[in-house]
């Protein structure tokens, strides 16, 4: 089967490709550029097209599938009426599938399930990444707050950290929040830009 993955995110397309590579007898094409999309799909002549729901070109693609006489076999959105739940799951995951006429649902189902799982995996990856970035920023703030306390109050590093922790516990807030507040206050009092505090 020839599968086209239309996705503006090259990373996500690669993640899906990797997932689908496990399937036998599949040739996978990735299209990331919206310019010339329809011509490219025409060249690929796919059996299945996967496209993310956020792609602005979905309407262009749907019109092409319905109207174009260039295609030998008509393509329609894959909606398996016997299993609406799994189509709902693919919408939830943010992917839609179009298949050529005559392709049996039992051939498409495992593929679509795999694609859905890869989409979900990618979404998790992104939120992990955002979380990791947040953690790094927090650690940076705590280091800077410690440095301010060490300079201003002549504390050692463990003492500065203990002070931050004590304040956080007393106020029922996170250490990172106390650190942010301290940095902001220090900036206001010394009239420095955050970047200068480093």
């Amino acid at each position, binding site marked *: 089967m020839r599968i086209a993955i239309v996705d503006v995110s090259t990373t996500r397309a690669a993640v899906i490709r990797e997932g689908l590579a496990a399937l036998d007898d599949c040739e996978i094409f990735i299209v990331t550029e*919206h*310019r010339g999309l329809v011509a490219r799909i025409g060249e690929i002549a796919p059996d299945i097209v996967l496209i993310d*729901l*956020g*792609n*602005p*070109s*979905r*309407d*262009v693609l*749907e*019109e*092409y599938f*319905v*109207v174009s006489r260039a295609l030998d076999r008509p393509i*329609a*959105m*894959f*909606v398996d*009426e016997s299993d609406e739940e799994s*189509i*709902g799951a693919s*919408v*939830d995951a943010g992917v*839609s599938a*179009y298949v050529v006429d005559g392709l049996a649902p039992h051939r498409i189902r495992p593929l679509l399930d795999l694609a859905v799982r890869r989409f979900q995996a990618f979404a998790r990856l992104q939120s992990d990444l955002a979380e990791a970035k947040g953690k790094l920023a927090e650690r940076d703030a705590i280091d800077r707050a410690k440095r301010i306390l060490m300079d201003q109050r002549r504390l050692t590093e463990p003492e500065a950290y203990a002070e931050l922790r004590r304040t956080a516990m007393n106020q029922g807030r996170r250490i990172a929040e106390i650190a942010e507040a301290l940095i902001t206050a220090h900036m206001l009092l010394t009239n420095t830009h955050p970047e200068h505090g480093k």
Partner: protein
Amino acid sequence: MTSSLTIGFLPLVDACLPILAREHGFAEEEGLSLTLVRDMSWATVLDRLLYGHTDAAHMVAPLAISTSLGQGLGRGRPAQALAVPFVLGLNGNAITMRPELAHRIGEPGRLGDPSRVGAALRVVALERLAAGNPLRFGVVHRHSSHNCMLRYWLAACGIRPDRDVEITTVAPPFCADALELGEVDAICVGEPWNSVAVEAGAGEIVLATAQIWRRGVEKVLALREPLLADRRDQIEALIRALIKAGRHFVDPRNWDDNATILARPEYLDGSSMLIKRAISDRLLLARGGSLVDFPDFMFQYREAANFPWVSQAEWLYTQMVRWDGLAFDADDARKVAQVFRPDVYRSALIGTSEPLPGASSKVEGSIFQTTTVGTQQGAMTLESNRFFDGGVFDPLDPQGYLARLG
């Protein structure tokens, strides 16, 4: 008690009413908490509606109709009855052409006369056809009001769509780009995308769709019919909130504020200056020109603009029959007439000061001058609703109308 409703939308100026109903507290006053979901294609707005991610959606009117019939681009998607109890606005689109084409056929510095521009366009279209390089138009969706209006205008000017010129779908964010690259010669799209193309120097606005049909139905509030039955009270509350948003939207004192809200990243993520042009019906037609005032460019409130006239749904159906190569089908026509729900609009607004038309259908294009019509509380004044060529659509005779259009 507060009920929650989730509404899908595309980042266009005419998504304004649900956004402003939320931002100005009109929904809250009606006991509703609105969540808005922004998408980038009508296909996705539709899928979220059909699979229950959203309760209602901002939608191009013809798409609500084709989805209910399960035809055309709904292919693959099973037919699902949608209900339209509220029209989010009339018109608000424009036709923007590559500058050299605009200079050749348009009337610089003003919106041209649709018949004269059409006659000049016909000459170019036939030249290009003979040269084997037919003019290409971009519309935002096959089942959009844009496509219906553009085709109506072209055909009435003796330019046969699909034979003399090509019409293709272009995603709104890529319209300016497509003009610039010459992938299309003209686009018919909503705001702010015409103005974006003008700012980029990629195109010039030649006509507003309101010049083609002065009171043409544009976006609607669409929901699944079973949801309307289940949550009727909430939907009626939503209609009252949207009406208040409409009244706020058309008041010049609010234009700056509303443009700023709509421009925010979670809504249109665009320029408040360009958005304000559409809101205030003042457009920059070409880079370096001055703003041109075209009253009723967008029409979101007056004259019961939000009333879902059944005759407007029926007009759209005739255009689908005309251009999708379908045979007129009496059963389909009946289904279409059930999509628009003036009964829900009336029961939501009874007891308010909003005019409630006594009839559910009217002869479209029949009002050539200011006319007074009956409402449940008295009378309402309607201005011209004419088609540019004087065509008249009588909903009692859709087949005769189609035969006359040829």
